[in-house]
């Protein structure tokens, strides 16, 4: 445990010193402030923030995470030569990456929104949802980043793979769902589509945010399965649970590969 803590703190120092995280936080801060100031009405600004959280946060998490692990390779090898368990090193890496990014997200998006909330208390629920979803996505995509970095030996290919993971989750997956929907439009597809949505963390996060921002619209959705599931608070709980599982699976897989990897 102490070795995990030491690895974690050294990783934290490293990540923060790399200035990437500072840049990330500043970028989020700037975009959020700009959106709130110039993004038109409050609703519109919040909707733009949804896109920021759904697209930018996973992208930065997966790309930065992957590159960081490649850069830290020598350091990792050095660590592994010491009497330190691989579990400690792996989890230290994960924590060292995920924590600063979460903090960056909270400062960058949460900070300006809190200020906005003082003026407009109706923003509290969306704010909490945005930050919760963003945090979950950070965990998920940091875990993906570790998987990619462990599995792919070469740096350039790893970078490409990280981008592919992001592209797959945000664009390609939805394209396939739409294709499925149009191909089999004569069949009742609500349940299958709902299940497919739950299998992709970005889609799941999007649905959770839709429930926060577009309730009026979703009430018009004829799929009773959907309204049954998300009508009460249970759907949100299930969704967040699933998001955490989405993070746990790649994390566990990466751990397994990391344990076996011949450095």
């Amino acid at each position: 445990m102490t070795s995990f803590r030491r690895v974690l703190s050294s990783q934290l120092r490293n990540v923060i010193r790399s200035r990437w995280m500072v840049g990330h936080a500043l970028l989020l801060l700037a975009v959020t402030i700009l959106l709130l100031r110039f993004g038109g009405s409050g609703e519109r600004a919040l909707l733009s923030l949804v896109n920021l959280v759904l697209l930018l946060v996973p992208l930065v998490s997966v790309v930065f995470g992957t590159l960081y692990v490649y850069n830290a390779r020598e350091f990792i090898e050095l660590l592994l030569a010491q009497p330190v368990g691989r579990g400690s090193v792996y989890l230290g890496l994960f924590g060292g990456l995920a924590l600063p990014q979460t903090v960056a997200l909270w400062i960058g998006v949460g900070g300006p929104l809190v200020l906005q909330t003082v003026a407009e208390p109706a923003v509290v629920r969306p704010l909490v949802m945005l930050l919760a979803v963003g945090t979950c996505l950070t965990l998920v995509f940091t875990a993906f980043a570790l998987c990619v970095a462990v599995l792919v030996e070469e740096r350039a290919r790893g970078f490409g793979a990280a981008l592919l993971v992001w592209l797959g989750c945000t664009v390609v997956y939805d394209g396939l769902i739409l294709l499925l929907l149009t191909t089999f439009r004569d069949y009742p597809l609500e349940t299958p589509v709902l299940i497919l949505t739950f299998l992709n963390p970005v889609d799941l996060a999007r649905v959770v945010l839709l429930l926060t921002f577009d309730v009026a619209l979703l009430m018009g959705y004829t799929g009773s399965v959907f309204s049954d599931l998300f009508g009460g608070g249970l759907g949100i709980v299930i969704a967040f649970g699933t998001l955490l599982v989405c993070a746990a699976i790649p994390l566990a897989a990466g751990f397994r590969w990391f344990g076996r990897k011949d450095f």
Partner: protein
Amino acid sequence: MIAGFLAVGVVTVSSAGPVRRLSDALALARPGDTVIVTAGRYVEAGTVRVDRPVTIIGRGRPVIVGRGDHTLLLITAAAVAVTGLVIEHVLPISTEDRAGIRLEGATGCRLEDNDIRDTYFGIYGAKVSDCRIEGNRVTGPARREQASGNAIQFWSSDRLTISGNRVTGHRDGIYLEFVTASVLSDNQSVANRRYGLHFMSSHGCTYRRNRFQHNGAGVAVMYTRDVTMEGNEFLDNRGQAAYGLLLKDISDGAIRDNRFRRNTTALYLEGANRLEVTGNRFEGNGWAVRLLANSVGNRFENNLFTGNAFDVATNSRSASSTFSGNYWDQYRGFDRNRDGRGDVPHRPVRLFSLVVEQNDPALILLRSLFVDLLDQAERVLPILTPETLTDLAPLMEPPR
């Protein structure tokens, strides 16, 4: 007995005095008299008939309670005024329209500042003209839709003024059928089981500054011409069959300066013709405007569209309504000559709205990057969305 006539033309009802019931007072009163009901609780065994022109005034909010199996107050005379009463307890029945206050063939009547609670129909009028229904509060027991009547209903009536009433907990808040040349203003119709406002074949009526909120199915109006709706608020009407304002076979009217917020569908037009839709605000709705192909010749100008998932949806490629000079928060054009109008036309119909129209479960892909990319591609090179449905001069700034 003599005490009741001490003041000329005034009959006083009080639980301690000689006249102890409203029905007794009305039997004594001559045309033109005033009946004053003092504070207290008066139980009536049957319908109280007002068959001569009298003024009934409640002092200290007296409560008139019925047994439940009859209409409480039945007004058949002209120039009757009823103010300050609390009318309570009429049970539902499917064979007759029992009401708290029922007007039959009455003219020039005035119902003002009454509380009507726990009744089947609140105020029901048939063949009525030139009446004023003002500042009443009609509160229903919120039974299920089939077992509740309408808060205010008029049938075959003319020149009514219905204003400042608050109606809630009934089937329809306000229901008009064959009512003409009437004005409804400043009413609040909240949390009714079915419609906040519902009218059919009620030509030439005006609706101003009313608020319709949290009603089961919003507002639905049908088969009427010459309707004017100004400054009303349509809020929070959510559900698969709920509409901020549903217009079916409505023609030659004006929908002006209304506010639509957080409705599943804000404005739905089916067979609605030659309407002038101007200066309205559509904010945070699922569908702001659903325009069916059988709606012809409507003009949409100077409206504000912001935060809606779909600004305009339609079921046909050819549009016969015109959009011009509206503000769209999704507009991405520019204004080089600085005249406040965008130089590039705006296409408010998203490709995705067409997809959802035909394929309902696809709604779950809303706000997906993929769908946004598809929409952008379609905007650049329209293939599927209606070509004619464009705003040629979109506003750059929201109208004040």
